[in-house]
């Protein structure tokens, strides 16, 4: 299970314009999007590009994380750094995009954590080793878990394509 430090803590309603500003949308490939992650937060973006943040770190957020645009770059740019997002809840399209591209994310409606806290995602809960508290995880609907288990929507769709062709 994932264990690491909180690199950034956000409040509610973080939009995809914050995560991946629109002016970089001409860049689409998951291999190229990470350079523009949180580009308007110059300090954070610089840390990321300098690889000063360990893979497996956590981004913690409040409700409605990823609201706004459907741009998938917002999910792929975070995945590029191998971070896990722990939010109280997500905007619908961002949640689905994260599942589809294989970004590790957890729905944790009561999460409390500050930057620098040591977290661990365990079975059914998030442990905050710094505060000593734990917070329950809300499971994903079964149908969505199947996409994660398949390794993302591309392999999942590939399997369905072959199954349907074989019928």
């Amino acid at each position, binding site marked *: 299970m994932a264990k690491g430090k909180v690199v950034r803590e956000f409040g509610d309603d973080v939009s995809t314009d914050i995560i991946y500003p629109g002016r970089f949308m001409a860049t689409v490939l998951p291999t190229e999007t990470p350079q523009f992650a949180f580009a308007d937060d110059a300090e954070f973006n610089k840390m990321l590009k300098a690889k000063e943040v360990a893979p497996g770190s956590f981004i913690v957020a409040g409700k409605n994380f990823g609201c706004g645009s459907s741009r998938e770059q917002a999910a792929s740019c975070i995945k590029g750094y191998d971070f896990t997002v722990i939010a109280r809840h997500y905007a619908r399209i961002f949640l689905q995009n994260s599942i589809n591209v294989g970004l590790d994310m957890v729905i944790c409606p009561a999460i409390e954590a500050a930057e620098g806290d040591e977290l661990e995602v365990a079975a059914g809960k998030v442990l905050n080793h710094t505060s000593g508290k734990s917070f329950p995880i809300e499971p994903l609907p079964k149908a969505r878990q199947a996409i994660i288990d398949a390794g993302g929507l591309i392999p999942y769709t590939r399997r*369905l394509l072959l199954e349907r062709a074989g019928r």
Partner: protein
Amino acid sequence: MAMTYVQKLLARACGKREVAVGDVLEPPVHLAMSHENAALVLNQFNEIFQGTGREAKVWDPDRIAIIFDHRVPAESSKTASNQKKVREFVGQQGIRKFHDIRGDVGGICHQILPENGYVKPGSVVVGTDSHTTTHGALGAFAFGIGATEMASVWTLGNILNVEVPGTIKVVVNGRFRESVYPKDLILHLIGTLTAEGANFKVIEFHGEAIRGMETSGRLVLCNMTVEAGATAGLVPPDEETRSYLRDEAGLKEIPEFFGPDGSAVYDHVVEIDAARLEPQIACPHAVDNVKGIGAVAGKKVHQIVVGSCTNGRLDDLEIAAKILKGKRVADGTRMLVFPASWRIYHQAMDRGYLRDLMEAGAVVCNPGCGPCLGIHQGALGDGETALATTNRNFKGRMGNPTAEVYLSSTAVAAASAITGVITDPREVH
């Protein structure tokens, strides 16, 4: 079982007698729309077929629409190269609902789809754009998806893992006062529901103010339902829908309409009296930070933007032209106008609206999304303030994180262009 509009629509689409909220379905897609981000979709699409030994062919080229609107004409060689890739793909796959960069049939996807009759009541529409909710104005279940999900739709022809959403019923009665528009209604509703108040839900519109509203206004309402987090907005189709489909969209065969059951169960009901609404403003940096115009009147504005998929239709250009005719955009303020499509551009040209706007000092740009999300023309300077008829005001939205964006109706934007400060249109005559 009594069903809401979206329940009935999904049941019909999936060939079932009834569906319950929370059921997981894989409905067939009647229309799959993308814009420039088709470049990413086709990358993911090709990856799906890798190693399968099968030729990468879309499931049905006639059900795919691709419209270039986000960065037109291309602002960079990177965009131009992506557009070139998409153009080649469109040719290879035989996709005919393709709207390239053209001054006759081009425009913004959320205007191109309705005006060309691509959206039909009762259908399932998905788009790689969050404002795909717009098309609920014609009674379609229309929602935004990501690029990988679209690649899956192009492959399979249906959309996976659709949970039948719960519905918030919004009943709007009464008549709008002078200088109050559908934009004011939807901003008020978003302020009431909050940015996540309708997350994973559908908003279904009812009431005499909706019945009396033209399709152009219903498109405004449904366009912005996503700003309350809604999966989709829906207006059950009626005679107005029929006239729009026949006269504007040129549809010869109009499908049979249906409505929700009278005893359908809603998550909750919001009632609004249109007669009590005033011009509304969404203040920085959240669309649900909505105030009556009195709270922000007098605020200096450097850039006015009229247009976009929200408010770039002929009635918007008419409102702006009538307010600005014979007047002058204030010194120190610039006004940009982006019609929603070239069809609208031509109509506004024929009626003299564009001349009136230009003679007042407005810059009429080509139809496109650019300034709304800060990707093509109309970026803001450090610390500047914009007042826009667009749909989002998030930090950094108009290309500069130190700038501020306020959102309003077209009438407020046009009145404010004359004074250079946020102005109640009822005070400019």
